[in-house]
């Protein structure tokens, strides 16, 4: 709704399309490939413009004409990655476009040299000393121009990037905001800004231009900050406003669903995405994660083969193959592919974590710890890595030690039941029963994914001889299992029924007890006990029918616990 309002404010979709078209050409001229890719994807999702409505090419000034030859030459060198050469020929050009390309070439040349030099480093002394030497000079020049107010949107963006690389984050944020104000349509600037925003308060405190692109940014930010509901809402608005064909939005929504573990929704979206854009590699690693979770071997195998055909030296491809091998329990090979992904891009967060998981499977705990630590180094908010560390220490039988890591993970994902269950288990091992109970209960309250929390809680109560609480938990557990519809492999309904039967029997509620016992007979492992219980019940009933038993009947009614759920409810949630 809001989007529609915004659209009317900024003109209709045609207007947006026009804006996109012009920014695409601007980005292309300056060699900003990713931004132009993003804008093009979005533009192609909108309707085609008639010929006479195509945006006019930007005005051609005298300065541009002067620099035209140099710029054309330099741009062709730039495209061929001969950055120094491009910069050399652009020196002295005065148009904004040429100036940006000049600075950008110098920046990229520095980056390239830095990458090359890392290989040739002179040992540990120099490790880390390798840096982009051009950054300092660029910063000095750009800050002078910045103070004089001579920077346009693109150069401001470059200035921000330079600042960020120099770890001057506060200044960088300011400059990016400025760049966005100067040129709201440049997605690269938004993206850079999103990397610097660490929490919602900071996001709220930024003053951003009121442009339709802001909604894209906010949606992206919400996803990053794990505020999935808000993100989904934003994307929904955007789709309603007319961006329904955008593959970008579809992929983002799919990722968002993945983050809240709504697997089916996410899978459906990814399948749609692959139909629309069969050669897409971006986000396919997330898709493979989903397939992995669902154990969909053939689909995963198909995806892996398909991606290898498209481009086998992409990080995403390697991750998909890694997942594929992992699903086939070939963990060494899986680790190998994750390593390859990391060689392609060491800052690839997911691969570090996944590699950690593989090492865990291989029982190589120390390598797993290292991998997880690397993941945390790349991104401190990676809850999976913290969780993985916790699991590693749990395997090493250090329940107290792993508490810290689980707590960290829980802090990052307060509403994820898995961390809570893990925390609860650790507390249970440490005999901190009250904490464990709290954790399990909370895990159930936030929506237990694995449906284990209640069972564990019930067992804990059982251990502590708190039979009423235990019975209630088993009750809820049965309710929970049947209400979710699907059959879970590890479900222990029989255990619950067995306990409930005994519980009712002890409390002399024979009707309920016999109901439970009958249900028990449906399960192989509890059949004998169920039958035994039924026999016992009938024996006792025979005794009750003798007159002397009448004395006890009212008594036994009084003995029943008040908190218990009426057992007759059981009928309503049988499958």
């Amino acid at each position, binding site marked *: 709704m809001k989007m529609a309002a915004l659209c009317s404010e900024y003109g209709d979709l045609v207007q947006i399309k026009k804006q996109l078209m012009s920014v695409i050409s601007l980005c292309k001229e300056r*060699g*900003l*490939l*990713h*931004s132009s890719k993003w804008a093009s994807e979005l533009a192609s999702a909108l309707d085609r413009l008639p010929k006479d409505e195509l945006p006019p090419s930007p005005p051609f000034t005298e300065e541009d004409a002067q620099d035209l030859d140099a710029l054309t030459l330099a741009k062709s060198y730039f495209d061929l990655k001969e950055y120094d050469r491009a910069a050399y020929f652009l020196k002295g050009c005065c148009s904004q476009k040429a100036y940006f390309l000049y600075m950008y070439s110098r920046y*990229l040349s520095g*980056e*390239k040299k830095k*990458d090359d*030099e*890392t*290989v*040739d*480093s*002179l*040992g*540990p*002394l*120099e*490790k*880390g*000393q390798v840096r982009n030497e051009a950054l*300092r000079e660029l*910063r*000095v020049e750009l*800050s002078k121009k910045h103070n004089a107010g001579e920077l346009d949107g693109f150069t401001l963006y470059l200035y921000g*990037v330079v600042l960020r690389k120099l770890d*001057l984050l506060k200044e960088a944020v300011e400059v990016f905001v400025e760049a966005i104000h100067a040129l709201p349509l440049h997605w*690269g600037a938004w*993206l*850079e800004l999103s990397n610097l925003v660490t929490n919602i308060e900071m996001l709220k405190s930024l003053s951003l231009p009121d442009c339709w692109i802001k909604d894209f940014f906010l949606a992206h930010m919400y996803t990053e900050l794990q505020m999935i509901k808000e993100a989904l809402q934003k994307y929904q608005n955007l789709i309603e406003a007319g961006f329904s064909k955008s593959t970008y939005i579809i992929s983002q929504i799919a990722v968002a669903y993945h983050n809240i573990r709504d697997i089916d929704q996410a899978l459906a979206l990814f399948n749609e995405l692959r139909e629309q854009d069969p050669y897409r590699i971006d986000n396919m690693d997330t898709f493979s994660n989903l397939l992995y979770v669902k154990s969909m071997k053939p689909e995963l195998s198909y995806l892996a083969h398909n991606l290898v055909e498209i481009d086998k030296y992409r990080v995403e491809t390697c991750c998909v193959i890694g997942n594929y091998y992992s699903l086939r329990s070939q963990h060494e090979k899986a*680790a*190998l592919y*994750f*390593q*390859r992904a*990391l*060689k392609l*891009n*060491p*800052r690839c967060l997911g691969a570090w974590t996944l*590699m950690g998981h593989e090492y865990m499977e291989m029982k190589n705990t*120390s*390598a797993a*710890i*290292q*991998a997880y*630590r*690397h993941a945390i*180094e790349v991104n401190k908010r990676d809850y999976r890595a913290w969780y993985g560390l916790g699991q590693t220490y749990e395997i*090493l*039988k*250090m*329940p*107290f*030690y792993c508490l*810290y*890591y689980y707590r960290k993970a829980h802090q990052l994902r307060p509403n994820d039941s898995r961390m809570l269950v893990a925390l609860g288990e650790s507390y249970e091992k*440490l005999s*901190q029963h009250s904490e464990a109970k709290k954790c399990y209960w909370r895990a159930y309250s936030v929506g237990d994914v694995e449906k284990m929390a209640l069972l564990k809680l019930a067992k804990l109560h059982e251990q502590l001889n708190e039979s009423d609480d235990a019975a209630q938990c088993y009750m809820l557990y049965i309710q929970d299992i049947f209400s979710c519809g699907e059959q879970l492999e590890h479900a222990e309904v029989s255990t619950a029924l067995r306990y409930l039967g005994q519980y009712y029997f002890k409390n002399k509620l024979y009707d309920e007890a016999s109901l439970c016992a009958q249900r028990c007979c449906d399960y192989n492992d509890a059949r004998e006990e169920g039958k035994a219980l039924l026999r016992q019940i009938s024996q006792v009933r025979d005794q009750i029918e003798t007159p002397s038993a009448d004395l006890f009947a009212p008594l036994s009614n009084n003995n029943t616990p008040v908190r218990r759920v009426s057992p007759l409810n059981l009928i309503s949630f049988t499958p």
Partner: protein
Amino acid sequence: MASVHESLYFNPMMTNGVVHANVFGIKDWVTPYKISVLALLYDMTASKISLPERRRLNKLILPLQQGPDLSLGQFLKTVEECCPQTAYAVKQRLQEMADGELKDMEYFFSTLPTPFTAFDSEAYKTSVVGLFMRHMLLAYNKLSFSQVYKLYKSLQLYYHSHYAKPADGQSSLPALVADDSDMDLTSTEDTVGDRIDREELDTPMHESELRSDNAPSRGPLSQKQAEYFLARQAYLLKNDENKALKPAALQEELNNMLKFNPDFAEAHYLNYLNSMRVQDIFLSAHCLLHYFDRLILSGNEGKSNGDEGYGRSLRYAALNLASLHCRFGHYQQADLALQEAIRIAQESNDHVCLQHCLSWLYTLEQMKGSDSTVLTEDSVKMAAHFCLPYLASLGNQSLVQQGATQGETAHKLMDALKDTDILHWKHSLSELIEISLAQTTSIWRMYGKSTMALQQAQLLLNMSSLEPVNFGVQQNNTEAFAVALCHLAELHAEQGLYCAVSHILQHLKEQFPPHSQHAKLWMLCNLKIQFERHMNEGKYQMAEPLVTAISALNKTEGLYRKAQVLKALNRSTEAYSVLQRLQVHCETTKCTEVVIRVMLSTAELHWESSGFSTALPLLLQALALARKHHLQSLASETILHLAFTQLMLGVPEHALSVLHEAIEPVLAHGSVMDKGRALLLTARCQMAVAGFRLNGKGPADFHLAGLAVDTLNEAAGYFSKLNCKERLRDVHYLHALLHRSLGQTSQCHKSAMLFRLLDQELQSPAPPVSMRL
């Protein structure tokens, strides 16, 4: 664009996708500094040098080879001091290379004497020099072309930055030179650290944009420099925190180091220590775990989960976590962590680790306030069995401490201390020697032998440490020193030497800044001294706010002081209830000293309601308790109370004879206040025995009265020392009475006048002649 978003950072140390934690395993890399050293060695072999100069240079070789990289200026300066001629030659050679071309450097390497051929020279392959040269040649030959080129570039930078320096940094150079002028071999290393400090101070972050751009970047430290930095800071943190970098500066330095070498696990440990310093539980736990995560990696190389592998660091990780929680007072958490450590240690049969756990266990029990004597005894036995003298005598000391509070006989304690002392000296456990001295001080103090306590405290403070004096740190700032200094302060305060006290406290404040671990000791001590002073001077209103502060640091002590203030302010009912509560509490925690003090205070409360006979059994009980625990000062204090009670009950002869027993120890060991009070009491007893009546009738015994006058004079001297006006007033009053009865009118008038003056000043009505001690 791609490289803008995601740095194509590629790590060459990475094999199989895993960065080897110990990239520093390869220690020999050719650096410009190493080239300078090589040039020096080359010149030493090539040229003729006089014998003393050669000797000096030879002494220099090892530190130069093994020390951290120096700047060219420092290097040349060091060499110059030994042999100017060689320094010049080295400089010349470097200049040739730096101002020439790449081939000059290559030529230099090719002309180096090969250790394999030069049989008779010092550079033969097995010598120290030869080994170094071989390492360097190997490392150089392994370099690829671009690396060689880079090396050459950095050599140029190294050389020229030294000579470019005077142009822009005129001011900083003389300072460096001044440092270097008195530099000998051992302090070479010291100046490096200082330089870091200075740089830290000299370049505030982002001061002005252009300046920070021009200033030479503070590059990463080489491994040895980093190791040295860490070792130095850790040592300083342990021994003299004030000399270490400030917490914030250290944190920044560590962050910087970790940014460049994220694999440097030890830095995380130092980070942990640093966070402990500022009581940051969150960060310190984080760093500790991070350190052990890293350590587990490096410990894993080629070793299995056995004794030496990462299993070992796992145990110690849990143990360290326990100690962390213990330090922050999370006893339950500490207990859990400790259980875990114990379990893992048991599983892997690591007795040494188990022993450490055991000693932590009894420490923890002690901190939780429960009796852990049995545990401690076990621990000592086991430690002795596994030949861990440190743990054994630490256990012994803690046993002595427990014994002391629980009334173990003195000679047993002293014997135990002596035995452990022998152990300490045998194994040179200087830390424990200090603790032992501090403990002896405390024990003597507890027994009320202030002279002995004073002597022991002085002994500790004047002892030169057994440990080698590193980094110019003379005095340790360990807990033992803090304890000894606090005792010293209190002992001085007892004698009324408040100026000395303030000096000592000032020193404590500097040595143990308020945020540090042992600061609470002197804070409490300071508060107690102030409180006593105010109480002595009769400024009860000023003492009252101190009670809250004391309670914050020590609850029992605070409660006791509160009772005292309430008593002084005549709020007897409240005081009584507080004392009752305190007594119950202390009897359960076996805090004998406080129990006796509480009994005395309760007795004083009884006096106020003239319940002298009810006070008697209480006092006798206190006396028995004090004697049983050999608490001499408290025993004599109790005797004073007893004597006073007897005096008030009208048996001054008995009182006087009882007093004779106490007066000697009081005068020998007691505080000024105690001495004054004892003498005042004696005088009053003497007056009473002499048959003196308040109605002014002449005394029966002039001799005794004369004695009383002398005693009063002495008491007056003590009271005036403490500025204790209320008691001075009493003294003057008694004086006046005595003089009048003795017929010495002028002296009588004088005393009366003094009394009048004080009475006006004090304003509070004089209590009926001293219903108090």
